[in-house]
């Protein structure tokens, strides 16, 4: 390469590091800046960055190779990431993929010769209710058909300017989405599809009225009030939020942190996307209240890379809150109450939805979960007490202080107060976002969304569980069916085993690889499932899967590995017929799966001759 090019990269790296004060904890931001400018962070750039930051190249390589959106090979100036999720597949994604490959003359993971396009598959991008969908760089394109896919590529060839893509593509290509999606700062095709606004999140709310009420109370009173409301974390695990705030508030510390988990990565979940679009002020308000209660001055919103199209909008809402005095110094006139929020972009790693992995990522490390204890409330971000709450949880908190704990408590059920936002997709007439009170049954939901001939419902996404028709009277709530918010509907024509297999692939790809059971065990489960799908399994294979699943559940280090066997185990439990139909007992002690012809094929190839015994037409 000419010396000038190298020179430019050196300068670029220095400039990027300078922009973040050579602060190694901001490595995610630096890598993003380099990835965008260079379309790939090769070894030479990694070395330059390492040198500039006083670290090792292998550390940078560890980062680049961990996050799916970073790469050491150049991607196109327009990187097309087609969402490869089960729901998208059922909506025709495979045909879209073929069309794109044809139209671009590219295979997957390839970049065109002129460097303009590259094509990738990517896990759920949070648009299951308008699938099939893709991202062109950060710009979402929804409701694809083969014609639309072709039209898109032609349009992009005429307008290959990545910078103006969001502003020009959408208007030219199709009309804008509803609500704030039409705001110039978002300017997106994405639709909200809020089918059922409920009493908490999508109700009338005077902006920052909850915060105003909260400022009349002491931090201890705030924590008590929130605990009284019964609010539990909306991410799925359901830890009482008041207790979490209390734990973070307690340890003596110079600094504490609040992190909003906006890394909505569970396939089939997209309700936080809608909250971030329509209710960003409610989230900011909830964060300020939490900061007041916990006693922290800095907050972070960890935004998944797939939602980068919302970045300018969110920055704008933060700026507006600052201008109104709801962020910054002496908030609401309370001397000594200073708090501000920055946005941290993720880079494509499902495991970062796990709170300690998310903290690692914010610290500029590989998104690997940390060992617990210590828990983040004691030692989290940069070693300080840290509270990590989900978008919906924080938005609920703002509403609780506006309307009172008793009001919230009266909604929902005994152990699950309030409402729940559900992202509903799959085989139904009205997919979208529904705000329901806890306690609603699956049957009621199916009627609401217009689902017919439903064969199975996946509650909570692949880390949740599959249930069948005999369980549709079960209710959403921590007493019965907890969920982070995904409800995926499969009608009776869908092949559940294929779905299960697909989710195993998802977990294999998204495992951080830190611990043995999850890194290796998921692969072994998949291999045995393939045998089942081929119809060559025997009864002992079912025991094998149960056994392996039990070891993953017993020994994995974080939630990903603990829940990775769920699709297999919950279908085995609730749909035993599917499995028994495919399993044959071994005949005459012979393994049913042993395919002599397949085994011979390799030997034939090596020996360059055929078998006298097994090839009937064999002649010398």
């Amino acid at each position, binding site marked *: 390469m000419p010396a000038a090019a190298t020179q430019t990269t050196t300068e670029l790296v220095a400039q990027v590091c300078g922009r973040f004060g050579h602060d190694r904890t901001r490595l995610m931001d630096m890598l993003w800046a380099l990835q965008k400018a260079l379309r790939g962070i090769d070894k030479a750039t990694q070395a330059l960055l390492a040198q500039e930051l006083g670290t090792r190249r292998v550390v940078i390589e560890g980062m680049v190779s*961990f996050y799916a959106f970073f790469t050491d090979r150049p991607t196109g100036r327009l990187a097309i990431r087609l969402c490869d999720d089960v729901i998208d597949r059922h909506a025709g994604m495979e045909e879209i993929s073929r069309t794109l490959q044809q139209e671009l003359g590219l295979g997957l993971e390839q970049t065109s010769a002129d460097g303009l396009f590259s094509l990738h598959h990517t896990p759920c991008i949070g648009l299951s209710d308008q699938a099939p969908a893709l991202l062109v760089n950060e710009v979402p394109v929804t409701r694809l058909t083969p014609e639309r896919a072709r039209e898109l590529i032609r349009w992009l060839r005429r307008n290959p300017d990545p910078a103006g893509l969001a502003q020009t593509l959408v208007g030219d290509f199709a009309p804008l989405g509803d609500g704030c999606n039409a705001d110039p700062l978002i300017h997106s095709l994405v639709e909200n599809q809020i089918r059922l606004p409920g009493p908490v999140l999508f109700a009338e709310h005077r902006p920052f009225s909850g915060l105003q009420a909260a400022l009349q109370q002491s931090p201890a009173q705030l924590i008590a009030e929130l605990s009284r409301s019964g609010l539990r974390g909306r991410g799925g695990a359901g830890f009482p939020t008041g207790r979490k705030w209390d734990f973070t508030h307690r340890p003596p510390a110079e600094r504490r942190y609040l992190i909003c988990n906006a890394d909505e990565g569970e396939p089939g979940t997209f309700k936080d996307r809608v909250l971030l679009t329509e209710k960003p002020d409610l989230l900011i308000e909830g964060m300020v209240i939490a900061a007041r209660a916990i006693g922290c001055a800095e907050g972070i919103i960890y935004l998944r890379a797939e939602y980068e199209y919302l970045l300018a909008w969110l920055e704008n809402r933060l700026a507006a809150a600052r201008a109104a005095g709801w962020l910054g110094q002496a908030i609401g006139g309370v001397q000594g109450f200073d708090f501000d929020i920055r946005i941290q972009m993720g880079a494509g790693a499902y495991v970062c939805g796990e709170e300690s992995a998310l903290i690692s990522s914010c610290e500029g490390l590989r998104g690997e979960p940390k060992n617990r204890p210590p828990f983040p409330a004691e030692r989290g971000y940069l070693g300080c007490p840290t509270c990590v709450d989900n978008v919906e949880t924080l938005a609920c908190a703002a509403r609780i202080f506006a309307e009172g704990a008793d009001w919230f408590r009266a909604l929902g059920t005994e152990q699950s107060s309030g409402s729940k936002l559900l992202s509903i997709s799959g085989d139904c007439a009205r997919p979208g976002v529904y705000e329901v009170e806890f306690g609603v049954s699956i049957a009621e939901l199916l009627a609401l969304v217009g689902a017919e001939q439903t064969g199975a419902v996946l509650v909570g996404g692949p880390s949740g569980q599959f249930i069948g028709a005999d369980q549709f009277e079960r209710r959403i709530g921590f007493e019965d069916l907890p969920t982070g918010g995904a409800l995926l509907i499969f009608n009776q024509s869908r092949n559940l085993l294929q779905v299960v297999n697909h989710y195993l692939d998802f977990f294999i790809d998204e495992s*951080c690889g830190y611990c043995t*059971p999850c890194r290796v065990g998921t692969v072994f489960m998949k291999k045995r499932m393939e045998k089942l799908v081929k119809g060559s399994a025997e009864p002992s294979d079912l025991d094998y899967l149960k056994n392996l699943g039990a070891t993953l559940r017993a020994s994995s280090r974080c939630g990903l590995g603990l829940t990775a066997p769920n699709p297999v185990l919950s279908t085995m439990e609730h749909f035993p017929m599917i499995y028994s139909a495919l399993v044959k007992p071994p005949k005459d002690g012979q393994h049913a799966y042993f395919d002599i012809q397949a085994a011979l094929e390799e030997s034939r190839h090596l020996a360059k001759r055929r078998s006298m015994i097994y090839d009937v037409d064999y002649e010398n």
Partner: protein
Amino acid sequence: MNQTFEFTLDGRVIRAERGQSIMQAADGAGVYIPRLCDVEGLEPEGSCRVCTVKVNGRFAAACTQPAEAGAVVESETAEINHHRRMLVQMLFHEGNHLCPICEASGNCELQAMAYRLGIHQPTRFPYLQPVRPMDASHPDIMLDYNRCIRCGRCIRASADVDGKHIFDFVGRGINKQIGIDADYLAETAASLDDLTFSPGLCPVGCILRKGQGFATPIGQRRFDQEPIGSDIERKREEPA
């Protein structure tokens, strides 16, 4: 501030000090909990999960789980040993292990752990048979990644003790592997004086010292005479 307290491990009373992990306390009492990624002198990592125990009925890794007063810990139960065997088998099948021709045989902790846990025959797991390179560029040291079990000991030893940070993890999921801070080991500051390259630091035969493989004949090696963990268990008989 040496506060001591007690908990039970498989019914035996163990005395622990504040800040100790379950494994450290057990080691002190002469009770061996199987392990692969942990080794004395390095920060515990908690990645192999072979040290999984049950604490008050919940699974945890003994190497990273702090000991707690009054805790009821189970280790040598049929259920837990079953999970341990599964994990050790996974590690065998994830890499390429041919003990009979491996120069680490007899010194290898993975092999010794298999024996200790009673794994004597092929398992039902598939062989992944990865294609992994070797690095023989360094004059004294050789890396055969086929046997790496991703325990991260070399990473911690090199970064925390030797202060060189020659290794780190790269990739994720099943593709997670050891990366080095150069294209080849010969281009790093690796030296036989490093703790990282000392015998026994790498639990398997991935980090090898050249020209020494069979200096100790098979049959007289570390785990040929007694099972892995015997050194710790011996402490139990010795008077305190």
